[in-house]
């Protein structure tokens, strides 16, 4: 009961977990709910960037992980790429089958195409929410990636960066994996890519978001309003520039 009130106080939870075995058992799911991968810092050797995976595997904590956050240190290059995985780390990563939330920073999606299912396919049944900060890809690649998760309800995208590599996988072969539910929340910041939504509408037969937060993504507003016309409950705009309607 006490521990239930401390789910967001990691320090207190850690202290509780040292009290006795029963408290440890109660605290462990909260303590290990989120796995954060940052690549081990600017000087980390490339072989050690996914070391936390082997650590939680050894401790038997993999089933407890419900949220994965991937980020990078300022000034470092993107490290979370297919080449970062070796056989073992990919095995441990693929064992994370209870994950319902992904928060990925600077994900260079184009690097994972066409084998993206190999790296993210094991999240397909459990994933409910995804947030992408500065994803790097084409709109089609992004919708292809999102279609990997049929139970996806919430999407957040911020500052998507369009990058078309020289050797692009044929667009025609980027067929959707599934029709995500998309019945939850959408937060769109500075990502005016209409094509993502036309693709997802085509593959899902429509969007059903109930809550929307839009900023600097005006191009998408008409299509999103139209697609969610029957389901939208709340709409949020931000007026930090004080120029609503300008």
């Amino acid at each position: 009961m006490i521990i239930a009130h401390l789910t967001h106080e990691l320090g207190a939870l850690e202290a509780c977990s040292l009290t006795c075995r029963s408290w440890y058992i109660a605290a462990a799911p909260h303590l290990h709910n989120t796995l954060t991968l940052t690549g081990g810092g600017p000087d980390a050797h490339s072989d050690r960037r996914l070391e936390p995976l082997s650590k939680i595997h050894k401790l038997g904590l993999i089933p407890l992980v419900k949220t994965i956050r991937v980020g990078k240190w300022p000034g470092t290059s993107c490290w979370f790429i297919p080449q970062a995985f070796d056989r073992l780390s990919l095995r441990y990563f693929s064992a994370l089958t209870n994950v319902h939330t992904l928060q990925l920073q600077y994900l260079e999606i184009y690097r994972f195409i066409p084998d993206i299912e190999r790296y993210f396919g094991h999240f397909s049944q459990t994933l409910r929410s995804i947030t992408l900060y500065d994803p790097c890809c084409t709109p089609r690649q992004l919708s292809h990636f999102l279609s990997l998760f049929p139970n996806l309800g919430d999407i957040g995208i911020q500052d998507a960066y369009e990058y078309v590599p020289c050797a692009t996988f044929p667009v025609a072969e980027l067929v959707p994996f599934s029709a995500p539910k998309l019945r939850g929340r959408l937060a769109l910041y500075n990502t005016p890519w209409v094509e993502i939504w036309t693709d997802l509408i085509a593959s899902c037969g429509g969007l059903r978001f109930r809550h929307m937060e839009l900023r600097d993504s005006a191009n998408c507003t008409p299509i999103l309003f139209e697609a969610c016309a029957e389901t939208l409950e709340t709409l949020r705009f931000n007026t930090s520039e004080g120029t609503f309607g300008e």
Partner: protein
Amino acid sequence: MVNQHQPSAAPEVFSTITSHVFFELVIGLSRYEADLSWAVRFFGVLRRMHEVRHFKLVFLLEAFWDARQKLMEALDAVIVKGLLDFLDSLPTIRIAQPRHYQWDVLDFV
């Protein structure tokens, strides 16, 4: 829609929402500006949006204490002036912590 549309476009786009369950429009305010001349135009747009479709208006203040106090005072003044009289009920004011870190930017409040 917030920044890029022409003044007349917001109500027009807003009119495409036909959802029977739509009930709330949340306006996030994260910065106080002494010059509130924009607010008159802003509330004019809101009025026209409300004519198209009724909604409950919520102001979400995501600012530090000083700015938050000023924003609250400014909103009180707006209400006293009757700029929001077109609403069916007074707007709700919610307060949230300013969002700094990128991890939190898209976390829903």
